[in-house]
């Protein structure tokens, strides 16, 4: 089978991929190898590993669904699920709401606006490990900035990271701060794509600021809102770095998240089967939520 449509490059016979198959193979071989051994293969492997008990020293022992049964009654895992859910439910809408407001405000042509925007973007590019270290210092119970600040108003010092009711909200606050820039950029791109004539026409027809926002800007922005929603959702299920730094030396039940649970079981306790079982549960949760979210889009997302 030779090239279709008259495009051919010395492909005598064409090889297994036909057409420009030989050239394609040359360009693609490493990617296909990587895809097989580092992505697709491992996904199948985790399925198999999750059915075993394996500490990497002895041979894996097949235990069926035991790992999953054990997870269902593992208090620490259930806490990890609950904390991850809390983190997601609070940080995603909060981050999106704040960044939407900021993007609307930042979307204007003033001299020096680029510098103001930079201030909002900067936390995005810095490593979570480094900035979490500063936040640990800000939250520090003895001389931390936050306690000193609330002290000015006569509020007593708090143990932000070790008090079980405050620990997770404190971590959420840091994450929202760090993530704002990403959503702002996406919202700004969406806002700049809205045709100015549309807004002018509405003004001429007597539409006020709120009416224009409600009836033109917001509907046209729904694709951007949907997009940042997906990204923040997936991101928040994977929260790890800030937990590692802020919950030193080891997260209590108040702050452990699912990815930390996977890390702890896989790479500290070397329970490979148990860790992969947990990662499957996470994968399923992410997949279900993303699917629901995607299915909701034709009810509220307007593509032009």
């Amino acid at each position, binding site marked *: 089978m030779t*090239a279709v*449509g008259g495009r051919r*490059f010395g492909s005598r016979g064409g090889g297994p*991929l*036909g*057409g420009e*198959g030989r*050239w*394609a193979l040359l*360009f693609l071989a*490493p*990617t296909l190898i*990587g895809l097989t051994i*580092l*992505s697709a*293969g*491992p*996904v199948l*492997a*985790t399925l198999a*590993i999750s059915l075993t008990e394996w500490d990497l020293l002895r041979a894996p022992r097949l235990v069926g669904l035991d790992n999953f049964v054990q997870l269902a009654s593992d208090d620490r895992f259930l806490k990890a699920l609950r904390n991850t859910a809390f983190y997601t439910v609070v940080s995603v809408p909060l981050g999106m709401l704040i960044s939407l407001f*900021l993007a609307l*405000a930042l979307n204007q042509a*003033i001299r020096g606006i680029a510098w103001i925007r930079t*201030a909002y*973007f*900067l936390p995005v*590019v*810095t*490593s979570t*490990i*480094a*900035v979490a*270290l*500063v936040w640990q*210092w800000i939250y520090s119970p003895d*001389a931390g900035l936050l306690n*000193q600040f609330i002290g000015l108003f006569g509020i007593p010092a708090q143990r932000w990271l070790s008090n079980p009711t405050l620990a997770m909200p404190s971590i959420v606050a840091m994450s929202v*701060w760090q993530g*704002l820039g*990403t959503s702002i950029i996406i919202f700004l791109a969406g806002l700049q794509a809205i045709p100015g004539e549309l807004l002018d026409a509405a003004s001429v027809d007597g539409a006020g600021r709120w009416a224009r926002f409600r009836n033109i800007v917001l509907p046209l922005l729904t694709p951007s809102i949907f997009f*940042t929603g*997906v*990204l923040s959702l997936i991101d928040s*299920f*994977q929260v*790890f770095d800030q937990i*590692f*730094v802020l919950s030193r*030396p080891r997260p209590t039940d108040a702050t452990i998240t699912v*990815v930390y649970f996977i890390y702890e079981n*896989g*790479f500290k306790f070397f329970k*490979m089967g148990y*860790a*992969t079982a947990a990662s499957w549960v*996470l*994968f399923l949760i*992410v997949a279900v939520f*993303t699917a629901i979210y995607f299915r909701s889009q034709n009810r509220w997302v307007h593509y032009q």
Partner: protein
Amino acid sequence: MSVGVAAAATERERWPARSRQLRRGILIGLLIAGGILMMVPFFWMITTSLKTRAEVFAVSPTLLPARPRWENYVDMWNALPFAAFFVNSVKLAVLHTGGQLIRCSMAAYAFSALRFRFRGPLFGLLLVTLIIPFQVVLVPNFILFRMLPHPFSTSGNWIGTQEPLWVGAFLGGAFGTFLLRQFFLSIPRELADAARVDGANPWQIYRSIYLPLARPALATLAIFTFMWSWNDFINPIIYLRDVQSFTLTAGLSLFQGQYVGKWPLLMAGALVSVIPMIVLFVIAQRHFVRGIALTGIKG
């Protein structure tokens, strides 16, 4: 626009003109205040890094140190092999970026400009891997690298070496391939067709037409890959064993564990590790912004 409407509009707008200016002024003021608030952690990082321990824990602390204590940076730099961390982070980020640029551009070229059987399904498979959370493959990849023999490592396998942190970059990446393919599709086919008539083969077309034209997209991918590698934490702490081989993120975490409460030194270390990314961001802000707007992935 009819005259009547215009007149009504100016009538309505005249008085609000001043109030609108005022509102705009307040808005800008709030934005600047918010921007300063966003920067507080960075200011605090800088000033703390120049304070003495006594100043940090003073009953009524000051905003700025009485005298900047630059020695903190020397002490920090010598407390752990920070020079090695720095070199390792640069080395891994450069290898990672190089690998991704070469591999993703080649794969993207094949997916956008060559015709072959299974092109659609293979590209679909690649896209599917985009949505697999990385934790799912964390354990099997670790086990895989543990089975691979390594001539120079003490463990005999790849665990404890830096190889697992960059070799994969030379075996493609779904995100980069996707990004570059989108860009390649916008390159007019006539250019390639003309070159083909002149006897150029696909490799020559890729090298002399696609790569030069895709420079902005390649720059965006390079910056994101570099940032991703520089800020990566979970992979270094899983694979690296010897402190001398640590990256800045792993080293900083070790530093945190060993110097509990020594905030000036910890802040100096944090600052040193974020400065390269901040410089890169300021230089290439345009590419950052475009990359995020295009893909939403921040690394």
